[in-house]
């Protein structure tokens, strides 16, 4: 009982009575006192009263039932429970603007957002939601990708069999693989459309030039993610695509053994940039392993970092660029200061 002391100023005590009007709280306190059989005003344990056995048993039982009922009343609104409040720091009160802001600010996933945005910025005709969809696809890819990793060995004798196993034996394995594949293709498309939108709205202009560059890096990483994933089934499609792709690296100027000035610098098939990419002079077991690690660890890690910067910069650059009020031709200063 000692954990529910009355606060001197009559404010409700912490716990499940929080938020109740003082009169109601007083009622509850009265009930609590009755159940503990203590005299008014004191909650410390005192000398037990002498009484008949019946009263001794019945009174506390009735009081306990009363108390249980009162407590149960408190649980009827789950948002008032200690458990709820420990998770959601802010009550979901529609009428209170402060709570709406706090709902965003106190949530780690939402706090990348500002609490409030320009009323026109939610128009999907403006951003087409393309950046957001691209990010969502990245999350889908991470999720399905991790699930695929449980079934896949990046080993020459096993990789192809794992794909067959996924397609025919793993529950929903085919769906999983298909989703990973199509989400990847879709992400390439949405990234391009997102970039296109940024151009059409002039959103790369000051002060967002740097974020545009971060975006370009993300575009390259997206394409590299797709490319490294292509080899992993270890089938003819991936093998030849990667062979064609990495053969170009032979011709890298200076760093490739068939590129301009490459041989003069001592480049051979066994030490040039292609060798470094493949871990060998042909697409084989080492290339599979390297592809796998780039695909599952290296590039996603780097991409996540760049995405974090991308989103951070959107905030720091003043949020989404528009829809901004139009500027008139005549308002442009002729010379740059």
């Amino acid at each position, binding site marked *: 009982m000692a954990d529910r002391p009355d606060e001197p100023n009559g404010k409700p005590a912490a716990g499940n009575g929080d938020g109740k009007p003082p009169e109601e709280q007083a009622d509850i306190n009265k009930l609590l006192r009755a159940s503990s059989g203590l005299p008014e005003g004191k909650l410390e344990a005192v000398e037990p009263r002498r009484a008949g056995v019946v009263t001794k048993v019945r009174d506390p039982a009735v009081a306990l039932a009363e108390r249980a009922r009162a407590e149960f009343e408190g649980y009827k609104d789950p948002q008032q429970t200690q458990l709820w409040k420990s998770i959601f720091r802010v009550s979901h009160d529609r009428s209170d*603007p402060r709570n*709406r802001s706090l*709902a*965003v600010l106190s949530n780690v996933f*939402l706090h990348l957002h500002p609490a*409030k945005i*320009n009323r*026109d910025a*939610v*128009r999907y005709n*403006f951003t*087409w*939601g393309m950046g957001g*969809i691209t990010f*969502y*696809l990245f999350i*889908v890819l991470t999720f399905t990708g991790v699930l695929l990793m449980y079934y896949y060995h990046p080993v020459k004798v096993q990789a*192809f069999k794992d794909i067959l196993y996924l*397609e025919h034996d793993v529950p929903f394995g085919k769906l999983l693989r*298909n*989703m*990973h*594949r*199509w989400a990847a*293709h879709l992400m390439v498309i949405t990234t391009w*459309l997102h970039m*296109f*939108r940024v151009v*059409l709205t*002039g959103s790369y*202009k000051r002060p*967002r*030039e740097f974020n545009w560059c971060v975006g*370009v890096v993300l*575009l390259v990483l997206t394409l590299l993610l797709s490319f490294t994933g*292509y080899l992993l089934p270890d*089938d*003819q*499609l991936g093998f030849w*695509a990667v062979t*064609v792709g990495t053969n*170009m690296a032979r*011709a890298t*100027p200076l760093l490739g053994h*068939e*590129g301009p*000035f490459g041989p003069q610098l001592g480049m051979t098939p066994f030490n040039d940039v292609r060798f470094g990419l493949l871990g060998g002079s042909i*697409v084989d077991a080492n290339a599979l392993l390297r592809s796998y690690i780039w695909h599952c660890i290296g590039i996603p890690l780097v991409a996540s970092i760049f995405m974090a910067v991308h989103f951070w910069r959107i905030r720091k650059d003043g949020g989404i660029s*528009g*829809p*901004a009020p*139009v*500027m*008139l*031709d*005549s308002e*442009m*200063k002729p*010379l*740059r200061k």
Partner: protein
Amino acid sequence: MAMAIPRPRGASRKWVWLIVAVVVVGALALMVQDWHQLWKISSTPDNIPIVAMIPLVVFFTWLGFKQSRANDELIERLEADPQAAKTAHRKTLPWRPGWARELHVWPYLVRIEFMAALIVTIVLFVWSITLNAPLEEPANPNLTMNPSKAPWYFLGLQEMLVYFDPWIAGVVMPSLLIIGLMVFPYVDSNPLGNGYYSWRQRRFATGMFMWGFYMWIILIIIGTFIRGPGWIWFWPGQTWDHNAVVFDRNRDLHEIIAGWGLTKLNVYPWKAIFGGIVVGSFYLVGGLFFHWLMKRAQMSRETFRSWANFKRWATVPGELEMKILQRTSILQYLTFQFFAISILLAFPVKLLLRLLFTIKYVWVTPWFNI
């Protein structure tokens, strides 16, 4: 038909467009010899995304330009009426004095994000249930795939291999593309159109980007739908002939010129010097072309009414365009010119030289060929 109810002009023009479109599509359809081949290429699971992307790009271009037009009309109106410009809301979007400027992210944005995620998830599920990811035979280095194609989004690069040596197509061009994209915001000195759709105010910058964007997509379409076994050009609807051999009559530019009597061009160093001059002139002419292009005012129907109008358009620079050019620093200008000529112009020029005139190299040196 003097009694006919006057119809808005736009409506009848729509009909004309529809008929033209039907005729064109019909004519194209008649030229298809092998529907099965066309279907086989388009329905390959890995090609579905590019098949889907074409209408998506068309749709979003339309969506962007629809908004540009609305904004451009607003700008024109405000430009003509300085008093209105001071008081107007300056957006095409509705606005009432009492409205709050800002909205709470929770729930107004979060619920949109949630719906978008839901829709994307449903699309992915449907797509993944109906269409299986491809899986070929196990990798076999001894059995070459023909044609051996990269995934569709890299076919632009692979197609470039036809026109340039691997070190240019595979290394230099992609690097230039990436760096070119990165410098894009830094060479655009036009402060107008920041945060709203507009064509009128940023025709050159938007146009240059779209030139590159569409060129890239066209290269992908060529690589996907037109290149068959042996990377040979098969028109869409033509049967892929796995035994087809094309006898490349490709010559180098200097050989053609030498054939006209300048036999010296067949030997070094003249060969290399000649190529250098050709490439140098290309940059010069290209630079003049872009310089001319960036100063052009917007075309209108008036431009094509008379030859005099057209001549005026082609020779008298636009006012807005000159203001933007004045704001451009020399470094910005030169950087733009370099990337524009090396990517936006070099690409189609080399493509046409190769496809129409079967010219392989324009510059042959002992170290590299372009």
